């Protein structure tokens, strides 16, 4: 992929009086990386996010405790050398629970957005490419989905469907609900992009070559909107993490014994814990805040780097 771009670029980067720095051949991806690097806050955010992701992936290396292993003999301990953030009411190591909780929170955020992107691409791609009545029907449906009251509906569905699902599987339910309800914005954006792209000559050329419509959409049109999709998906991960944490905090999302940052904060609903055991609820809250802020900063940086309209 990169090599192909280099070949293409070599023909038209023949302007003469360029400095040596500028003479290096820039592929589109290199250009984006370079622009992204200029925003220091986004780069720092990327580094912090990498640290968070790595520590969540390598949780077993970082903490030798099992987040599910309980031992009543050591329940409700305050932070100590052995248990950095103490233990919970069942004697499980709390630091380990936060690390594994991060795994769940990030997984839910990422997979919810994947679902969102797939549906958004299908609906937006088809509506934008075919136009006419297909576009009309799909966009009306999208508008109806957009006018759903998001949080109340998520709460209702999660509570009702959740009753017949095992606690260990609830995280998949949350992913699916969030994914199924948040695609309309993305679908609209992709449709708008494709509406203008399909008038361009490469689409005409593809049609003249007799390429199937579905292939034109997937291989020629959608890849051209990838920049926008990446920016929007990044920001969507941030809001999916926030939504999951809110749901789990209400007790309607990911359910114990599976830990997630949102349901760990539930300890704060008990006045005694809120007041005397702040190490139970402040760290997971800060984890959510830090992760979401980093993702938002990266999203902004990507937007500046990818969006040709921004400077």
């Amino acid at each position, binding site marked *: 992929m990169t090599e192909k771009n280099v070949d293409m670029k070599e023909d038209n980067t023949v302007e003469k009086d360029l400095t040596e720095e500028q003479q290096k051949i820039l592929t589109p991806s290199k250009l984006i990386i370079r622009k992204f690097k200029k925003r220091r806050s986004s780069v720092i955010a990327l580094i912090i996010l990498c640290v968070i992701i790595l520590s969540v992936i390598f949780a077993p290396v970082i903490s030798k405790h099992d987040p599910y292993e309980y031992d009543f003999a050591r329940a409700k301990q305050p932070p100590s050398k052995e248990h950095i953030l103490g233990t919970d009411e069942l004697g499980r190591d709390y630091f380990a629970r936060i690390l594994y909780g991060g795994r769940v929170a990030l997984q839910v955020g990422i997979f919810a957005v994947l679902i969102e992107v797939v549906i958004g691409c299908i609906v937006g791609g088809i509506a934008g490419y075919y136009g006419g009545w297909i576009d009309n029907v799909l966009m009306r449906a999208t508008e109806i989905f957009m006018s*759903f009251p998001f949080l109340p509906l998520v709460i*209702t569905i999660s509570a*009702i*469907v959740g009753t017949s699902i095992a606690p260990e599987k609830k995280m998949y339910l949350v992913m699916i609900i969030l994914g199924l309800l948040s695609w309309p914005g993305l679908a609209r954006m992709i449709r708008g992009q494709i509406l203008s792209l399909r008038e361009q000559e490469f689409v005409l050329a593809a049609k003249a070559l007799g390429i199937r419509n579905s292939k034109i959409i997937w291989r020629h049109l959608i890849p051209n909107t990838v920049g926008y999709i990446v920016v929007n998906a990044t920001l969507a991960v941030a809001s999916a993490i*926030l939504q999951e*944490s809110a749901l789990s905090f209400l007790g309607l999302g990911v359910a114990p014994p599976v830990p997630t940052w949102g349901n760990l904060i539930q300890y704060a609903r008990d006045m005694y814990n809120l007041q005397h055991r702040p190490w139970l609820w402040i760290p997971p809250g800060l984890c959510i805040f830090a992760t979401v802020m980093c993702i938002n900063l990266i999203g902004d940086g990507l937007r500046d780097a990818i969006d040709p309209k921004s400077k």
Partner: protein
Amino acid sequence: MLRYIARRLIQLIPVILLISILIFGIIKLVPGDPVGSNLDPRATAEQKLAERARLGLDKPIYVQYWNWLTRSLKGDFGYSYIYKRPVVEVVPSFIKNSLILNIFVYLFAFIIAIPIGIITAVKQYSKTDNFFSAFSLFGISMPTFFFGLLLIYFFGVKNQWLPISGMITVGRNYQGIARLKDVLLHMVLPGLVLIIGSLASLVRYTRTSMLEVINQDYIRTARSKGLSEKVVIYKHAFRNALIPIVTIVGFTIPSLFSGAVMLETVFNWPGIGRVLVEAVNARDYNLMMALDMFFAILTLLGNLLADIGYALVDPRIKVE
């Protein structure tokens, strides 16, 4: 214009019907028999059958939906299981409590956000601008419920400066001015969280729309005519920037109400959001359906208001 509004209102009807079918369908997915919870556990099989027939549960699902719909249209949403009173009697007082909090927040947020948005756009990349960018980032990245808990911890528990729960002090029967003061004090912390949350997006929005206008040719023309900067910004630029801002006014209404779901739960504010969570947890289906429909209609009306506002303010948009 009136015809446009009327047409849009008529267009809402099928959408509302569709949403009501969806909500009804979801709630009918519930496993188990709702009759069980209403009756004496010693009830005989015949009594249970009679109860099912009385509630219409023996009929096919589309008949049940039709019955629910026609009764709802007459204002009969059934009986609330938690409050032991008809749903229509329960809901209005909660709507009122949510409105008190929301109107206060709404006015405050807009009054502050618009000037800040203008200033940050006019002085782009200045220190003020950077400060508010950081502030906006904080606002959109902070989970509302966690922020609420932090405020409770610092202002209500560590230092007992402000009330942290409910809408009035329990046990004190304040009247008149004292009562108003009491409610206002209870509103400070939840209001603060909501204001900061909505400020973040409002400031961003105003700033972007101001920036777009400021770079237009007619602003340069206005400047080159020798108009003072004040006139250029507030008369020419702001008026045009107002157009997209008007739409956000409409969109914010439903999001404020549903955003309050988390906050009302954390601060125990007796509003519609907290009741929704209560109803969901207690499986009070009649109350749930009524509240979900309320939120759905509110969202639709908010969107409609945004469109009407847009058409009213922007002379370039033709209503036909």
